[in-house]
């Protein structure tokens, strides 16, 4: 057996390790109820902003606290707290993806990803805007 073969075997072992670690550290798109069942784990939860409830951000009081209510894919609503500034164009978002965990009745988000209609350039959407201008 050649020495490089030994390294090839090590390589394969490491590659398998990499795959497994990827799998174990990759998250899963989930909902609030699963997150509530496992308060120790981080979850990706996607849903929509409840526009009828308060979207609270008062930088004069606390520039690092932002809260709102989100309804997940299954229709469950929870208050979301985020330790940071309010993302730009938050109200315009179509869909929200939160990464974080449940803490009692609240969901504490580590990060907030927004899907905005303008970002995913829908020409018809643009044309609507455009028609009102023209």
């Amino acid at each position, binding site marked *: 057996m050649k*020495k490089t073969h030994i*390294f090839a075997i090590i390589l394969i072992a*490491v590659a398998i390790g990499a795959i497994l670690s990827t799998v174990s550290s990759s998250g899963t798109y989930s909902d609030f109820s699963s997150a509530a069942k496992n308060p120790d*784990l981080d979850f990706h939860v996607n849903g929509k902003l409840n526009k009828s409830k308060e979207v609270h951000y008062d*930088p004069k009081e606390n520039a*690092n*606290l932002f809260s709102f209510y989100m309804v997940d894919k299954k229709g469950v609503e929870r208050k979301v707290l985020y330790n940071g500034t309010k993302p730009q164009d938050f109200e315009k978002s179509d869909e929200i993806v939160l990464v974080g965990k449940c803490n009692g009745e609240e969901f504490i988000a580590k990060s907030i990803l927004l899907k905005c209609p*303008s970002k995913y350039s829908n020409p018809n959407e643009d044309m609507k805007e455009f028609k009102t201008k023209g």
Partner: protein
Amino acid sequence: MKTIEYIGEHPIFGQIGHLFIALAFTSALLSCISYFMSFMSKENRAHPEIFKNKWQKLGRIAFGIHTFAVAGIVGTLFFLIYNHYFEYYYVWYHSSTTLPFKYMFACFWEGQEGSFLLWTIWHVVLSWFIIRKGDEWEAPVVGVIATVQVFLSSMLLGVVVFNYKIGNDPFILMRLNPEMANVPFLHFADYLSKIKDGRGLNPLLQNYWMVIHPPTLFLGFASTVVPFAFAIGGLLKGKYTEWVKPAIPWTFFGVMILGTGVLMGAAWAYEALSFGGFWAWDPVGNASLVPWLTFVGAAHLMLIFKNRGQSIFSTYLFTILTFLLVLYSTFLTRSGILGSTSVHAFTDLGMSGQLVFYMAFYIVLSAYLLIKNRNKLPKTVVEEELASREFWLFIGTLVLLISCLQILFSTSIPVFDKLGFYHVTNFLGTICNFFIGLINDLFHSSIALFQKRHNLSPPDDPKAHYNMWQLPISVLLGLIIAIGQFFKYKNTDSKEFWKKISLPLGLSVLLSALVAWQLEFDRVNYFLLLFASIFTILANLDFMVRILKLKIGHSGASIAHIGFGMILLGVLISNAKSTVISQNKSNVNLGKDFPNNENVMLVKGDTVPMNKYYISYKERTRGTDISDRKNLYYTIEYFKRNDDTKQLEKQFELKPIYQLNEKMGNVSEPSTKRFLTKDIYTHITYADIEDVVNPSSVEGYKKPITKQMKIGDTIGLANTLVVLTGINKSVNKEALKLDKNDVAAGAVLKLIDINQHEATVEPVMVLRGNNLFSIPVVVDSLGLKLEFPKINPDNGMADIVITEKKTNEFVIMKAIIFPYINLLWLGSLLMILGCLLAIRKRIR
């Protein structure tokens, strides 16, 4: 049906464009067939001297036509953009009348069609260097590149064959674009009169980095095709090893350009994006890094082969893999599969099927050729010596491969999810759970079990996930690079080796201990990387000085490796020791798992302490230039307290930008103060722009400002541009209820608001006898009061007094110190220089 005559359309140019695309496609096809015939058909093999030249000539002529056609496509598209022919969808979608000339080329890489075009251009340019040389490699290499050109030009065809649309035509008229089918007014004859302007180029791309980064990156991508074409050409031609030598300079060239492209992307992210750093393991960034890693591997394997005649199979593998990975990253970024995970992925244009086919074609082709010819490849007969350079070079490439695979797997999670890969992972997880359960039972441990999933999302904390793997890999790479050069090919005397290496090794231990102590490194893995990168730098420096005796021409490898070491060191220190200095002493804390309170609020005029500094938000201004109107500049002043006088002394000011971006939502662009040993990076995380968007909603007025203006001058206010267009000397006195004898003059001011709406107002100055007074104008909708009190007799300029409505203006920002980040940029330059020297050495 009667055909409608559409008013103002210029359909002829689109037709010319179509023609060029069709020509580019067919000429590429003809060129690759002819080139292959020149060395592959039976009669050519029998009588090469008769046929070979004819076919080769034909291939070359066809490639010439192809070049002409590609130039034609580019020229036509540019002509359409330059002339603002908005009846063309591409022009409407990616440009506007206000787009400055310098950014017009950027329209090419905003859209997918244009970016394929850019790629095509580079292939053509690279091919001509090979054709010009005109040796035995012209036919196979340019032949293979021509096949790629066939695929790339098919991406622009836009024809429907059996209900399947091939490619996207950049010359399609807006009214014919299926995306626009349900927009009724496009079908009226005078529809063009309703289209005043295009959507415009994404303001984020209107940045000088975005003018140079995409073409460089695409040149890097394009350059991977040349070594690939040499490898495939070698297999086709039966010259299984001879291709390596001519391919080496091309490989170094590609490594250099692709590396530069990736680093420019990092620099752009650092300078213009606000995610707080230069590398965020963003999928698109990863997608261009991965082929670079295998490309570097391929370059080193080629050196092993050239010097020792071994590991040809791996050389093939890495060369081919690099090109395939470029195709795969194209697929990742263009298929829309990354949609929600990346900032700069393109949207799906329905071309993923085509991209998959394109990839499959080259996978099958390369696999077939390699398997068919496997017995003809020279086998390594000698056992590698542990103390040989080739052995460590080879191990180094394997480490690169591991690094590449790990990034590739993690970046491909959205693809795995689409393919239903979570069934496989659930299965693997079940097996692992069995063993984990066993371990837990035996050792009373509590290792977490794998969770069952119904889908896969990217890692929750990408930085931690990637660093866990890439950090130890970088340590290994650094060590291998450091010792590699001290081994000779074949075998090295161990006494000599230790004698040579002991000096840099000892120095590195000392120096890294010193640095670790100075910078207070407290984690073992950081210390290991610190040592590995310092060892890389010192060992290569030592090699250059003592062994190469500073012969610059031969020091390419050493200089590139020193550069790599510096990049590692810069990345390590600037990341591990970066500190957010805008810590807010706030009352609410959400627990230790969550980011600290990293944003600080500044009310205009207030001065607050931050780290060693005192910072103050001075003012907000708006760009005056038409292409700069979208940017709000926040002036943040940094002060330090003088210990003797107890006075605050201004150190510097930063102007982070908040960009009003209609195309993708407002974005903020950081501003950085650069010192030799650290950068202070500042960006706006939240801006209160209510008064800009809706000025009449705020009460009270600010202190008036007086500006001296001459005709044509412009003042940029937060929400309005004020232009003095003229002085009206025949003011309508009756309307203003003035006396007949009064002397009155009006300052004609054009006001342009953020929506580009224009209004003209005319504050008036009146001379009644010896009294001078003025009649101001109040514009409620803009929250402005304008006065024209006098004209200065000495220079003839008009005084304009502007009073803006008061706002309780504030801004929220974040500031980070990145220490020693200049090592990263210096290392990048050295790496590029090293590659250049290596290329120069190989082509001489």
